């Protein structure tokens, strides 16, 4: 199993618990980003590709061209949280302003918080699913001044130290206590003046009201389905869902 860094911790704890009930099962899990996972699926180096985004057109056509059939499983729902320092003047932000900040149109915080200091964006690198998710969701390309960090921990470390910093990380990471005391999670309003929703609000996520939420996918090579079916069943079981929730993700019941 290869792919999304967002999902790798979750997948590992799922696998560890699965071993307890079925010890003849063996699975190797690595991260590296959704793109890498799907590429591994293409090159037949992985049975399962974890991905925090759907397949893009290129990948879809390459899979077809190479005759690899896949089955798709949605096993959890992830939300992306926008974080700032605890002392930050505002608690919520609307999507339009956020778009302008991330694309570099707004260069200082003056009109937003009153402080005349330049905006510092802490983001992920382009091989991260979170990076492409935020950029596609807002339909912007990130400001060229945006810093590209190596992972959630580094982004939070950067924001923690920086009064002018704004960063984005998986909400699961914060729910698990990765945020610490000095971090504030911004509420997001879809329209200026609209109701702002926090990614830590479970009810809102279940109703899909938070703007930056997305399903987490597992793409499974159809030829490997029998090999992994037991594991997938475990993910859907009560015990599996408990682990998913404990890891800071949400489960939206299929209907």
């Amino acid at each position, binding site marked *: 199993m290869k792919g999304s860094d967002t999902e790798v911790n979750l997948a590992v704890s799922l696998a560890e618990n699965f071993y307890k009930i079925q010890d003849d099962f063996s699975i190797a899990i690595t991260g590296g980003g959704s793109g890498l996972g799907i590429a591994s699926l293409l090159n037949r180096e992985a049975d399962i590709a974890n991905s925090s985004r759907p397949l893009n057109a*290129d990948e879809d056509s390459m899979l077809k061209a190479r005759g690899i059939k896949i089955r798709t499983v949605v096993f959890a729902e992830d939300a992306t949280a926008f974080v700032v320092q605890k002392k930050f003047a505002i608690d919520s932000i609307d999507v339009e302003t956020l778009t302008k900040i991330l694309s570099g149109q707004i260069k200082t915080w003056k009109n937003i918080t009153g402080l005349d200091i330049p905006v510092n964006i802490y983001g992920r690198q382009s091989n991260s699913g979170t990076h492409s998710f935020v950029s596609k969701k807002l339909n912007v390309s990130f400001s060229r001044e945006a810093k*590209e960090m190596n992972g959630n921990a580094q982004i939070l470390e950067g924001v923690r130290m920086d009064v002018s910093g704004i960063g984005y990380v998986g909400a699961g990471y914060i729910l698990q206590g990765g945020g610490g005391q000095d971090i504030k999670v911004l509420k997001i309003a879809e329209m200026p003046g609209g109701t702002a929703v926090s990614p830590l609000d479970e009810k809102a996520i279940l109703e899909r009201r938070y703007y930056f939420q997305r399903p987490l996918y597992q793409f499974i090579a159809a030829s490997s389905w029998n090999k992994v079916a037991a594991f997938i069943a475990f993910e859907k079981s009560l015990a599996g869902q408990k682990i998913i929730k404990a890891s800071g993700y949400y489960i939206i019941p299929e209907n």
Partner: protein
Amino acid sequence: MKLLVRERMDNISKLIFRTTGLLVILILGGIFIMLLWNTIAFFIKVKPFDFITSTQWNPSSITATYGILPLLVSTTLVTIGAMLIAIPLGIGTAAFLSDYAGKRLKNILKPVIEMLAAVPSVAIGFLGIVVLGPGIAQLTGQSNGLNALNGAILLSIMSLPTIITVTEDALHGVPDTYREASYGVGASKWQTLLKVTIPAAAPGILAAVMLGVGRAIGETMTVLMATGNASAFPKDFFHSVRTITATIAIEMGEVPYQTTHYYALFAIAAVLFLITLVVNLVGEHYVNKYRKYQAA
């Protein structure tokens, strides 16, 4: 009979060593050809002129631009900064080790310095994020310290062991008769070091610097973690930069095979390879020159 066995042993070992030697050359040649091949594929799609003059590296936008200039400037900025710190510090330490330090102190200091080379680059990069970055931010009154200066300081630490060890060897290699002659005409220890020993060891010191530069240019993980990796054209030392190595590390994992972007990464890798090759050749040249001079 015994002779026959021994001759056979000799022949077999000769064959083994020849094979290993050739294998290394073969691997190097293979890497070089792969780089060259992909670079040519890149230049079929993108004009070399655009590659050199464009001021933007932005392969993922719709109108992709592949300008190496910002990356090259980033790498240069970080490397020059590192050398500005590491050269005086390295030569000073080496001079102390070879001419001032007592034998006991030297026996402690040398292994300690060499141990510095064994610290993993990830650990040094982490220090850059949690200690050096906030430190720089506080000292300079900026909001954050993930910039070229941070990378330069960390790289200077990483290239120090190389510079110190090679410089110390060079200084140590200057025949004692030089120093004795200098003392004989009434020069102090400091004057001797500055006017006699260091100039006499200059080729060796230059080699040390070149090897240090090579170390700094090729480093990936530390700069990837500590310099912020913003893709905008770098303005100064307090600006976030994205070096050639960091760009390859970030983008290679995701790029689809055999696209222009994929070839572009090989092209910048080839540029990096050429730079390091030249730097190392210059370094080697001076090392050899200095050896000849030693033998005479």
